């Protein structure tokens, strides 16, 4: 919405050109080997590790002055950390920012894929806390790298099977593991499994894990399959409601507690998507006539 001059005290998009070049090399390698975690010399950023430093470095390496940047956290543009990261790039890169998915060229996200289908030419940058899908089965990096190299994913299937044996269902609701182009098992970052089908996209998807020093990618139109069993197929689930503001029955919903008696409402987690629908005249159960 607003383009401004970037702070001259810093290089464009904060990082120096050498560092950006190093990150771009890692990105190209990641795109060449979909789903493979490329080690990169992650830098210390002016925001804490675990707060999107990987995504910020990837975005910084991809940004050009002509880009229009959108930043979301939990699907929303106005959550505090999304505001903070957007401000960071407004200040250090001076790029135009937007809240509209369709207007953006780069979207940095935490925990969601936007509802509106992404298109060719767009880049979706994910913030990743733990890039290794096998980490909670095997804590050692030296071991998990070997397992990936040998395509030894039996342990993961055993875990999913044990879930079914104990609970009757796979008890992973977010960061649900996927297999990319039939080769690497990949952590899609903590997006709800509802979003998994949209990992097959026309856009470039880049994943940055700053603290863990890893970058990986899913190029456009790459096959991404959520792990499952024939008799327990993967199911993308959401709350069994419609959005109370825009009435949408197919979007991912947040549950909001609205009164002391535990009353609830359900609203789209993607705020831009929800506002767009309301602008088109859609109404939900709790939106008054003036809600748009």
């Amino acid at each position, binding site marked *: 919405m607003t383009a401004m001059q970037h702070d001259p005290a810093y290089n464009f998009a904060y990082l120096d050109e050498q560092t950006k070049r190093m990150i771009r090399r890692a990105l190209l390698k990641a795109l060449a080997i979909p789903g493979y975690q490329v*080690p990169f010399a992650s830098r210390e950023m002016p925001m804490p590790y675990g707060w999107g430093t990987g995504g910020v470095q990837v975005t910084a390496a991809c940004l050009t002055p002509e880009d229009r940047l959108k930043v979301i956290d939990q699907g929303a543009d106005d959550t505090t950390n999304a505001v903070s990261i957007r401000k960071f790039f407004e200040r250090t890169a001076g790029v135009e920012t937007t809240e509209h998915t369709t207007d953006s060229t780069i979207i940095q996200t935490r925990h969601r894929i936007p509802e509106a289908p992404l298109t060719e030419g767009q880049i979706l940058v994910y913030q990743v806390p733990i890039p290794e899908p096998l980490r909670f089965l095997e804590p050692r990096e030296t071991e998990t790298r070997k397992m990936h190299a040998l395509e030894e994913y039996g342990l993961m299937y055993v875990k999913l099977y044990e879930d079914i044996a104990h609970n009757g269902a796979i008890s992973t609701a977010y960061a649900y593991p996927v297999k990319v182009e039939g080769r690497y098992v990949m952590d899609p970052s903590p997006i709800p499994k509802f979003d998994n089908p949209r990992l097959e996209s026309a856009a470039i998807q880049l994943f940055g894990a700053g603290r863990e020093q890893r970058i990986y990618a899913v190029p456009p139109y790459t096959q991404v399959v959520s792990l499952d069993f024939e008799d327990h197929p993967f199911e993308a689930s959401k709350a069994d409601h419609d959005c109370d503001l825009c009435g949408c029955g197919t979007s991912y919903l947040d549950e909001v507690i609205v009164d002391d008696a535990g009353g609830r*409402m359900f*609203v789209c987690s993607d705020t831009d998507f929800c506002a767009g629908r309301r602008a088109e005249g859609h109404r939900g159960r709790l939106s008054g006539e003036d809600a748009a």
Partner: protein
Amino acid sequence: MYVAVKGGERAIDAAHAWLAEERRGDASVPELSLAQIREQMSLAVNRVMAEGSLYDPDLAALAIKQARGDLIEAIFLIRAYRTTLPRIGHSRAVDTGAMRCDRRISATFKDAPGGQVLGPTFDYTHRLLDFKLAAEGGTPSAREAEPLAPEVPRITEFLNRDGLIQDEVRSEDTPPDMTRQPMEYPANRALRLQALTRGDEGFVLGMAYSTQRGYGRNHPFVGELRIGAVEVEMEIPELGFDICIGEVTLTECETVNQFMGSKTEPPQFTRGYGLVFGQTERKAIAMALVDRALRWEELGEENVGAPAQDEEFVLAHSDNIQATGFLEHIKLPHYVDFQSELELVRKMRKGAEGAMKEAAE
């Protein structure tokens, strides 16, 4: 009626304004100057420089002031600033043998050439609150002695001459740089030492302490501990020779550790090494103990499964900036993932309740 986190931007601005006010504290109390912090909180400044991996007492003092005395926050500020600095070149390896020592002690020999010099240490103070300091401390002055000889010999070299201590393998290889390359396991010793010297003092201390209590015991003695200034030299290509570009204060600790010998080596002493920016001796000693514990493989020792022997465990968790960031990120909104868990738990409970009902009927 819909009250989700709107207005994040205004809330952030307001929080920052309040933070600035709290940082200043009671306005009737004079404001701290950076010089005051640098001169009178110098051990805090040293820790920030050591773990921030940037030797600049003025910037460290600024960081401490800005961080309201939260040293990990101050270290974080220094690290983030460090990222923006261009890498102009590399210094020569500093020569700690030529250190101008303020303090130099050995626990393994009663006396040794160069002498035992206590220096400005807390070691033999009685930890009684000095209420006089609560009033005016005044400007105490200490007697001055003649400076030590310019080259103080290393204690461990005396042992080395007799072949009683394991010789360190010399290497002309350029050591890896953990700030420019991603961490790789297994790491070599140079990389381990880099990680330890910037590692969290509390973490390294705890790891070292665990070896003393039996989790990978390695019988350390402080062979030598020295603190003082060393010159930093750099070769300037245009000149073709080395010039001194400044001076840093370092704490160096060499431990002498027992070693029972192995199939290939006769019994002899082994070494652990710690080197840290500033006067930071707790950290340097702890670093030497952890370094020694991590050398089990190279020295042909048994891995007893102690945490301090586990390179990946120690190195992956020693950095307080990584640790605090990831720990505190759980304050960020997680309602999308939480929502997906909610759905799952509700669904599974429904299934379980159904099954229990069936079983009861």
